[in-house]
């Protein structure tokens, strides 16, 4: 397996899809000449030319809407939203237009497009370039939402996203772009959407993570004196209910770690499902480890405090296992 950075895995996934399917086109801001601000489209312009790889005006609504139209003719646009925050000015095209065409046309007009966006904190980009914001899209029927958690699955998930016949939002944690991993490549390496991955097996507790928090959870499990099973959801819509329920039915304890404000994060959906289905089997309440309900701080010290870290996840999980009750979060004086 080749070893590469996550941004290289992304560029290779797009390139391999473009090689195998001439209808795949790429456009967005600075994706062609510059190869993308995070170098996720590096080399595409040279290999595939300006018809299939094209820079657009700074106009997210314009190019996302154009992608919806282009997809309706049978093209497979892969568009890049440089920072997920910029999706705010184009959200209509995603949640009200593109994701509803199949439904509104009784299946006739399909929109096989992929929207890639960088997400998350950790690089000192401050409050307006560090959010995750996936919650915007999760309750919008007609969309699928997946995230890479490193180079290892970025390639395979993105290939599936591009091949999908419906709109898929593909999230890329910014702080992982430069991190290297061993990547399985080729046409057999696609990872099906909607399928979670058991990253590490364990017996005492199930830790469910997504995107940037997968690495945090794995690091915590490696340091822990207890045995934690780590599940990388990989896709949030639809999320793999079976994998989570089967795991928690064995471990009887669930911790959800997400890079999201505590209130209304996707973890609440998973907590509700598990608490409802496995009510009598749980040996502890479901614990959610998140950020506080505040914007992402700019300064390094506060940003580090803000993000769910390995030591914080360990301390919180340890408290849960030892007491069978919920620890308070750090912003309420809980264990860190």
């Amino acid at each position, binding site marked *: 397996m080749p070893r590469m950075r996550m941004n290289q895995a992304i560029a290779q996934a797009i390139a391999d899809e473009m090689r195998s399917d001439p209808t795949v086109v790429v456009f967005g801001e600075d994706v062609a000449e510059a190869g993308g601000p995070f170098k996720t489209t590096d080399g595409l312009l040279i290999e595939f030319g300006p018809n299939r790889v094209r820079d657009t005006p700074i106009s997210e609504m314009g190019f996302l809407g154009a992608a919806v139209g282009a997809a309706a003719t049978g093209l497979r646009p892969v568009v890049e939203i440089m920072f997920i925050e910029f999706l705010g000015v184009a959200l209509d095209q995603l949640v009200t237009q593109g994701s509803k065409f*199949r439904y509104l*046309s009784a299946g006739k007009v399909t929109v096989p497009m992929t929207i890639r966006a960088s997400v998350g904190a950790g690089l000192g980009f401050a409050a307006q370039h560090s959010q995750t914001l996936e919650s915007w899209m999760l309750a919008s029927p007609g969309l699928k939402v997946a995230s890479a958690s490193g180079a290892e699955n970025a390639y395979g998930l993105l290939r599936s996203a591009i091949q999908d016949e419906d709109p898929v939002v593909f999230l890329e944690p910014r702080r992982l772009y430069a991190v290297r991993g061993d990547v399985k490549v080729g046409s057999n390496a696609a990872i099906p959407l909607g399928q979670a991955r058991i990253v590490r097996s364990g017996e005492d507790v199930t830790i469910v993570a997504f995107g940037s928090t997968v690495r945090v959870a794995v690091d915590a499990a490696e340091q822990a004196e207890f045995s934690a099973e780590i599940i990388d959801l990989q896709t949030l819509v639809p999320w793999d209910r079976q994998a989570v329920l089967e795991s928690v039915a064995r471990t009887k304890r669930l911790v959800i770690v997400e890079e999201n404000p505590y209130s209304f994060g996707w973890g609440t959906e998973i907590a509700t499902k598990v608490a409802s289905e496995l009510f009598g089997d749980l040996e502890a309440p479901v614990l959610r480890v998140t950020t506080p309900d505040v914007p992402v701080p700019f300064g390094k010290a506060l940003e580090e405090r803000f993000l769910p870290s390995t030591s914080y996840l360990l301390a919180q999980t340890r408290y849960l296992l030892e007491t069978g009750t919920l620890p308070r979060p750090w912003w309420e004086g809980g264990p860190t």
Partner: protein
Amino acid sequence: MRQLLTPSGDLVGEAPFGLDLCVRLYRAMVVARSYDRKCVALQKQGRLATYAPFEGQEAAQIGSAAALEPDDWMVATYRDAAAMWAQGYPMELLVAGRTGDERGGSPPDHVNVLPPSITVGGHMVHAVGLAWAERLQGSSRIAITYFGDGATSEGDFHEALNFAGVYGVGCVFFCQNNGWAISMPRSAQTASETIAQKAIAYGMPGVQVDGNDLFAVYEVTRQAVERARAGEGPTLIEAVTYRLGPHTTSDDPGRYRDAGEVEEWRRRDPLERVRIFLSERGRWDPEWQAEVEEKAAREVERAVELAESLPPPAPGDVFGGMFESPPRHLREQQATLELYRAAGEG
């Protein structure tokens, strides 16, 4: 403002088409008006959901659609049923769409018309993408998008025009300036003297045309379509027309506009001037008119019957049309619902 046929039926330039096509388009306008009035009546009887009438805008829609090739793309709105029908969209599906049946959004394969946009403005960029993608795939199809004067205040309009201008795509932006965006008059919508002049900022031609003049609408659209097809880029057309009826069947325009203004526009009826033109050339008489109207009414009646004879959707159909391969939890929900319904418990 481009005009070829005055409200009193005088030709003030060269007709862009022969008498036979003129007769055909006049008939189409009669059918469109018949459809529109029928839909308003059906809505009052509770047989249709909210309806947005287009009476007064028949020339703008029929004249512009007539300038297209049958397989060109059309991206229109809730008020553009006449244009959509003229581009091949089966009338019964237009009616079905207004009864709330999603099957109405799925025309036959050869009809390149997207479901009508119900939100304001978000659809214009789709036409840009369609036109660009067609060119990329080596096709000569162009795209036309319809919108109102109100939509030009949306950011979508500016991004669509800017994008189309920069990429030089074969897209025709057809604005029906009908004077009113619900209760907001055109004068309060933008400080620009015309909507057509906004084209200058995006590096494309902008043309203002008498939108109640079938001849002029056809001519300027034809020119824009030819430009688009030749790879010379987009055009913005402002068709100045008037919405004689309410915004929708839920609206009372008496609260915000003068009856006198409506009367004034009635005297500029888009059908009447063509009727005079044909009459003066021996192609119109009252008997023929009665026959045309009767045929139109029959065509509309047949479409309504077809739409209303569609079997009603089953509860499980809410799951249909969401994904090519529905996720497991949705498949399970649908299967469970059908099981309970089969057992008579749903």
